[in-house]
């Protein structure tokens, strides 16, 4: 399925991920965590497909488990002591739960970042920076172009050296490293010398004239405005919830959850809607296409 959310304006994409990541990192409340983790996995599933999701989840579960075990080993706060370690330190229920909670948070953050990497392509970054720091955005854009080009060049140089009897693929570790350095050094000369022509090309096309503008193919249209509005509304509700304490949970010295009430359930719903936003947009788009097709 083609992701519709990534076709929105970069500002929308970026704001969304910033909000979701911040909320995920802040809150250790079980409901918040469950929502964030589930939605991130769901969205990643839509973006990356079944295989990628299965792989990431497996990897993450292992890591999360490790973190959940490590935490109680160092953190001995909490009142409910389960047993004592050999060195006399207590293992508490609170610290185990806390470890689990931070593991879940870690997994959610990583999953959101995985989605972020697919949606926020380099050109969107270049665009966003271009508004604030145009020169650095240009540096970024150039560096992004150079990296693949240099990688290819490294391969080509290594082949060319093989062609004159300088093989890099065998020999001791030290020899291989030396050979690698030789190639890197050749590549650096090539890159620096050739960049001069790029500078000429930039100057020749008027770079450095005052009042440079910044062009992009992104347009902030009605649909972006609508989604932005919804997003801001949800964010402010969740934020209000966070300030009033609906999203915080106390772990130490003893577990304490804020009692659920009408307002906090509203906050949960808002958070769920926020986290599901891209998935909802994708589904709506899918439905629309189904309708158009059946209408034909």
């Amino acid at each position, binding site marked *: 399925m083609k992701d519709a959310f990534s076709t929105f304006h970069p500002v929308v994409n970026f704001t969304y991920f910033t909000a979701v*990541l911040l909320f995920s*990192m*802040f809150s*250790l409340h079980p409901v918040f965590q469950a929502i964030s983790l589930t939605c991130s996995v769901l969205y990643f599933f839509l973006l990356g497909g079944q295989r990628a999701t299965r792989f990431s989840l497996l990897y993450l579960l292992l890591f999360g488990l490790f*973190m959940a075990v490590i*935490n109680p080993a*160092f*953190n001995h706060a909490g009142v409910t002591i389960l047993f004592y370690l050999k060195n006399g330190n207590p293992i508490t229920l609170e610290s185990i739960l806390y470890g689990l909670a*931070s593991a879940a*948070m*870690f997994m959610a*953050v*990583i999953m959101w*970042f*995985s989605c*972020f*990497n697919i949606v*926020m392509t*380099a050109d969107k*970054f270049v665009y966003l920076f271009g508004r604030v*720091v*145009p*020169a*650095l955005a240009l*540096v*970024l854009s*150039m*560096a*992004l172009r*150079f*990296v*693949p*080009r*240099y990688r290819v060049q*490294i*391969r080509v140089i290594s082949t060319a050296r093989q062609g004159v009897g300088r093989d*890099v*693929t065998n020999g001791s570790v030290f020899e*291989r*490293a*030396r050979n*690698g*350095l030789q*190639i*890197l*050094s050749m*590549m*650096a000369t090539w*890159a*620096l010398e050739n*960049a*001069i022509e*790029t*500078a000429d090309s*930039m100057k020749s096309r008027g*770079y*450095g*004239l*005052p009042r440079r503008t910044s062009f992009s193919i992104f347009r902030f249209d009605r649909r972006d405005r609508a989604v932005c509005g919804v997003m801001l509304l949800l964010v402010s509700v969740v934020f209000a919830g966070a300030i009033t304490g609906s999203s*915080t949970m106390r772990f130490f010295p003893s577990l304490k959850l804020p009692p659920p009430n009408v307002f906090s359930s509203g906050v949960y719903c808002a958070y769920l809607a926020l986290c599901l936003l891209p998935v909802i947009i994708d589904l709506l788009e899918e439905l629309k296409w189904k309708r158009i097709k059946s209408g034909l």
Partner: protein
Amino acid sequence: MQEQPLNAGRPGRRTFIAATLLALVIPGTILFGVFCLGDRKYYFISLLIMLYSMLPFALVFERRRPEARELLVVAVLAAIAVAGRAAFFMLPQFKPVVAIVIITGVCCGAEAGFLVGAVAGFVSNFFFGQGPWAPWQMFSLGVIGFLAGILIKRGFLKKERLPLCLYGGFSAFFIYGGIIDCGSLLMFTPYFSWPALLTVYVSGFWFNVVHAAATVFFLFVLSRPLIEKLDRIKIKYGMLES
């Protein structure tokens, strides 16, 4: 064509204002964090302070409207630092990033050193996946390049192989390793404690040792030729630090 002279080297009024702002904003952030953020204060305070410290570099660079060739030197060196890894496809864990950032700082000054470090950190995340560690990487690499430039200028560091290797090993182990490990602790464990930090350092010890050793090796072999190359480019085209 140029509306203002290039006087970025001297601290001007702008730098003063920026410094005062920072002096106000950083304590403000810490207070806000301590009182409002609860559990996550360490992470967010450190993150925000890092961003503040990177901001002036970006702004100074933007404000003096750098020339095309300056942009190119930063972009090329950052890209070499990232792509350089491909030359060691047969040797995993062999990353030339720190070495190249140091050499940039040494040859092209503290500002270029910082920018190359930060850009390299950012760009490498595009090719290996962005994560919450990106700001820490950018910051630590930037600091390494910046310090290299400052130390050269103040005369504490020389453009010779041995001092560079020493600085390289030190910065890869303590600055890069130290900041990154601390960052990963703050990122995922919502509280901070010295024993926990110590554990993280211990568990990352060999990793950092290998990284430092590789950096020393890089600088030992590459520092002279790379410095020569950069100096040649600078002379030939009158770049940076003119």
